[in-house]
């Protein structure tokens, strides 16, 4: 049975962004840090493995403060 992979992104009212992957195996979820940084033109300020990291789950926090100036409004 194929594991379902999702990324949950929460954008707070102050613009801060947190993201968490689900169903992504081990360190593969690190790739999503780069994906989200690229999507948001943001810089990750902290990240941490959740306790069930070995069951393929991680947590990433980034900040929209760094993302905003590069938001493409064209």
């Amino acid at each position, binding site marked *: 049975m194929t594991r379902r992979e999702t990324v949950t992104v929460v954008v707070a009212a102050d*613009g801060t962004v947190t993201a968490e992957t689900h169903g992504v195996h081990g360190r593969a979820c690190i790739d999503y840090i780069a*994906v989200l940084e690229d999507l948001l033109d943001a810089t990750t300020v902290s990240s941490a493995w959740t306790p069930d990291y070995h069951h393929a789950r991680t947590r990433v926090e980034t900040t*929209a403060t760094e993302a905003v100036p590069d*938001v493409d409004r064209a």
Partner: protein
Amino acid sequence: MSVSLILIPAALAAAAVIQARAGGGGGASTVCTVSTRMRDSVLLSAALRETGAVVTAGDDVVDAAWQGVESRFTRGADGIWTAHFRGDVDESRAVEIVRRLDVAYGRQVQAAVVERLRDRALAAGLRLESETVADDAAVRLVFAVEREDRA
């Protein structure tokens, strides 16, 4: 009454600081610094409009007018904004205006980030499955991973 504020991006300041820098001696002019996250002139203009201001915007100069109060925001070469308030305003009111503006700016940041995610996620292999708004106004987006070679 005239008040000038220097707006320092929060990334450059460890904590919010409000500090009178010069009184001018005559009591009619005050300069103080306020920590803020504001950097983008378009988002700043949108935030000003959210506070009820009439806005005239350029890249590095933004003029705003409220009832009885006018302000000019000027961005220096270092990226730091200076806000100069004129009219029925003292230092405490000017700082309070900037505080409200900072909150409004945060909401503009949130809207811009959510819009960007909606527009660009699919190209990154992420399909938007759901979008909900929490009691604290946070927007939660759940994306399904479309391409296995992404992870």
